[in-house]
């Protein structure tokens, strides 16, 4: 039987949702009929609006997806102003205050505490600078990710920025592809470093070269069916197809059409491309694509550049991210700034917007490591940019534990989450920076924290993967983390293996400290952490993790999900001010 979600999508989905949002915004939150809440909130996702978790009714998360993470001059500032005016909650976050923007692992911006009544004005302001929330959530083409410095980078082989933008322009608001069985995530890589993270996407374009009619042509190889969610991580699989830039659009439409028609609409758990590829195999995907979805003869795969991929490849040296000062191919520089767990308070964000405009072109790009990049900075401006006070906190040269930290949304706003994430990761990073040193020559160490198995923080491709769990400590349930080790991308991508389970969250920094100490002691010469993990079996590794309490203090051990907001003075669900009217006054419920 088709799920309720499929039924609702059949009735109304895609661009038609816009008018309904406007209608409800005009009439106010209470105008949404009680018995239609589930249906409308499911539909709103298509326009980038996600109803926040229990205890926060009537407040929405809003996601804005610029293709490839490129925010043109002026766009970043507009987002900051919108956050300043509309993204304010009824309580403060102790680390981040009230009013901020989140940079996400798929190069999008997320705003929280958005009121439905404000949405039309926000949409207008976004559109005024060429931004939109369309398909940022929901069952369709999500934000297209790619090399964050595409078009600027010395390592580039094909212009990934152009393709990402063309895909965005073709498949956003495109009725033929607006209702897919589930989300559809696409990545475009153009460089020889592999920073598009294609391997963990539903559809990946990767740079390649192919001899066609005696001529060497540059374009892309195609992989499909990667993803991290639900304890079932998959690397995208090679379907032996090479495309030119022009063919890429048709093939992308073809593959998402294949998914639209053959993906599992009966069972949402099973409705991802990775499971279809499991079931059919890459050959059958290719055959069906050729037979039913494209009008020209597909080329077989070309020569790829995967052997040179260095991004998150686990070597002790090598380029792991886009943080720092790097020369562009035009002689200007791009400057990657570290954003701890992706969150920027509005006051800082204004200063960053100013700095980007003063010293560079004003363009700000978002990376899949939740960081930002200023582009087009002339050499003579670099020193002045480095001297800006705001760069003390958003540093081009951060400590490895700050630089390597990624955290998802967690119990603060997300209904799936099992544990608190962002504030905890900030505290982990601070404690590790103060207490732990990495061995000689290890400049990069990635620690990713996800609140549940959906894996939004991409834990499986980190050196240390942390995933939300619970355990019992002194007879009480407490928030805990599973610990995985040795994940990463590169020529030989590898998912972390889970070697320690249900470690109470307050013992995790101690566990990481002991692990790094053991690694420093027994590693072979300048073995990287990933090589070190690969050379050992799970039991050996588990022995190297010795969880223990330290002077690290974890204020979020109790069940943060049972609160309306984990940091409120009165955090009890009963004390929730939600749902609330547009002006924030609670709407009393008398059922």
């Amino acid at each position: 039987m088709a799920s309720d979600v499929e039924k609702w999508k059949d009735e109304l989905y895609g661009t038609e949702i816009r008018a309904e949002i406007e209608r409800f915004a005009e009439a106010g939150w209470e105008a949404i009929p009680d018995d239609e809440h589930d249906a409308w909130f499911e539909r709103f996702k298509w326009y980038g609006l996600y109803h926040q978790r229990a205890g926060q009714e009537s407040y929405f998360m809003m996601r804005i997806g610029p293709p490839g993470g490129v925010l043109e001059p002026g766009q970043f500032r507009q987002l900051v102003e919108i956050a300043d005016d509309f993204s304010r909650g009824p309580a403060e976050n102790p680390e981040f205050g009230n009013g901020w923007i989140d940079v996400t692992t798929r190069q999008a911006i997320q705003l929280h505490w958005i009121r439905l009544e404000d949405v039309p004005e926000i949409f207008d302001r976004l559109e005024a600078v060429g931004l939109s929330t369309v398909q940022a959530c929901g069952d369709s083409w999500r934000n297209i990710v790619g090399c964050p410095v595409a078009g600027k980078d010395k390592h580039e082989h094909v212009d990934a920025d152009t393709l990402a933008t063309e895909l965005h322009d073709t498949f956003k608001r495109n009725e033929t592809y607006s209702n897919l069985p589930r989300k559809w995530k696409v990545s475009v890589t153009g460089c020889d470093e592999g920073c598009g993270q294609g391997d963990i996407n539903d559809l990946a374009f990767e740079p390649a070269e192919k001899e066609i009619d005696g001529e060497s042509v540059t374009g892309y190889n195609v992989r499909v069916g990667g993803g991290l969610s639900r304890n079932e991580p998959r690397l995208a699989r090679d379907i032996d197809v090479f495309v030119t830039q022009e063919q890429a659009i048709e093939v992308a439409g073809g593959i998402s059409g294949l998914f639209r028609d053959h993906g599992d609409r009966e069972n949402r758990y099973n409705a991802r491309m990775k499971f279809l590829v499991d079931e059919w195999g890459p050959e059958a995907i290719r055959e069906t694509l050729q037979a039913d979805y494209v009008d020209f003869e597909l080329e077989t795969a070309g020569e790829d550049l995967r052997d040179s991929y260095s991004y998150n490849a686990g070597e002790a040296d090598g380029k792991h991210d886009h943080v720092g000062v790097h020369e562009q191919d035009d002689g200007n520089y791009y400057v990657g700034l570290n954003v701890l767990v992706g969150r920027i308070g509005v006051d800082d964000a204004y200063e960053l917007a100013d700095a980007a405009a003063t010293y560079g072109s004003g363009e700000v790009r978002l990376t899949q490591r939740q960081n930002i990049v200023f582009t087009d900075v002339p050499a003579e401006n670099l020193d002045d940019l480095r001297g800006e006070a705001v760069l003390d906190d958003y540093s081009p040269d951060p400590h490895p534990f700050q630089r390597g930290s990624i955290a998802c949304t967690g119990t603060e706003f997300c209904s799936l989450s099992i544990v608190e994430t962002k504030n905890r990761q900030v505290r982990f990073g601070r404690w590790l920076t103060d207490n732990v040193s990495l061995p000689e020559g290890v400049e990069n160490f990635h620690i990713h924290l996800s609140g549940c198995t959906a894996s939004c923080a991409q834990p499986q491709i980190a050196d240390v993967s942390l995933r939300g769990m619970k355990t019992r400590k002194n007879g009480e349930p407490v928030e805990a983390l599973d610990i995985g080790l040795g994940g990463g991308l590169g020529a030989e991508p590898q998912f972390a293996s889970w070697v320690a389970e249900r470690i109470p969250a307050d013992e995790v920094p101690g566990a990481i400290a002991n692990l790094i100490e053991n690694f420093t002691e027994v590693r072979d010469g300048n073995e990287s952490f990933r090589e070190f993990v690969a050379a050992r079996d799970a039991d050996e590794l588990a022995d190297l993790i010795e969880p223990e309490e330290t002077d690290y203090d974890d204020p979020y051990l109790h069940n943060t999900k049972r609160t309306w907001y984990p940091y409120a003075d009165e955090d009890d669900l009963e004390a929730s001010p939600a749902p609330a009217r547009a002006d924030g006054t609670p709407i009393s419920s008398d059922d």
Partner: protein
Amino acid sequence: MSIALRTLDDGAWISVNNSRQVSVSDVWTLSRGVFCDCKPAYVLLEAFLDVRVDGPTVVAEAVGQCLECGVRETITYLPVGRIVDGTFEPVDPETVQSVLEPAGKH
């Protein structure tokens, strides 16, 4: 009066009459050693797979993991609440649940 029951957001919660009533990530106490050998078993629910009514009882199918022994299993019959006069009354996850069919039976 008919009751609208469904799981949403990838099994994150159970909706009863369009209101979020039961959420994953709570620890449920299960008795009788039917989930695993632990007595009682403290089981973290990770996802709801299905929900239905059985008489007045709202019953979920869920995936969970035992916090002591680590067994991860499907629970086919987990009472999560009751419908009383058309209103949902949730079961407290911390009270011991004994009405539980053997895991794996479908």
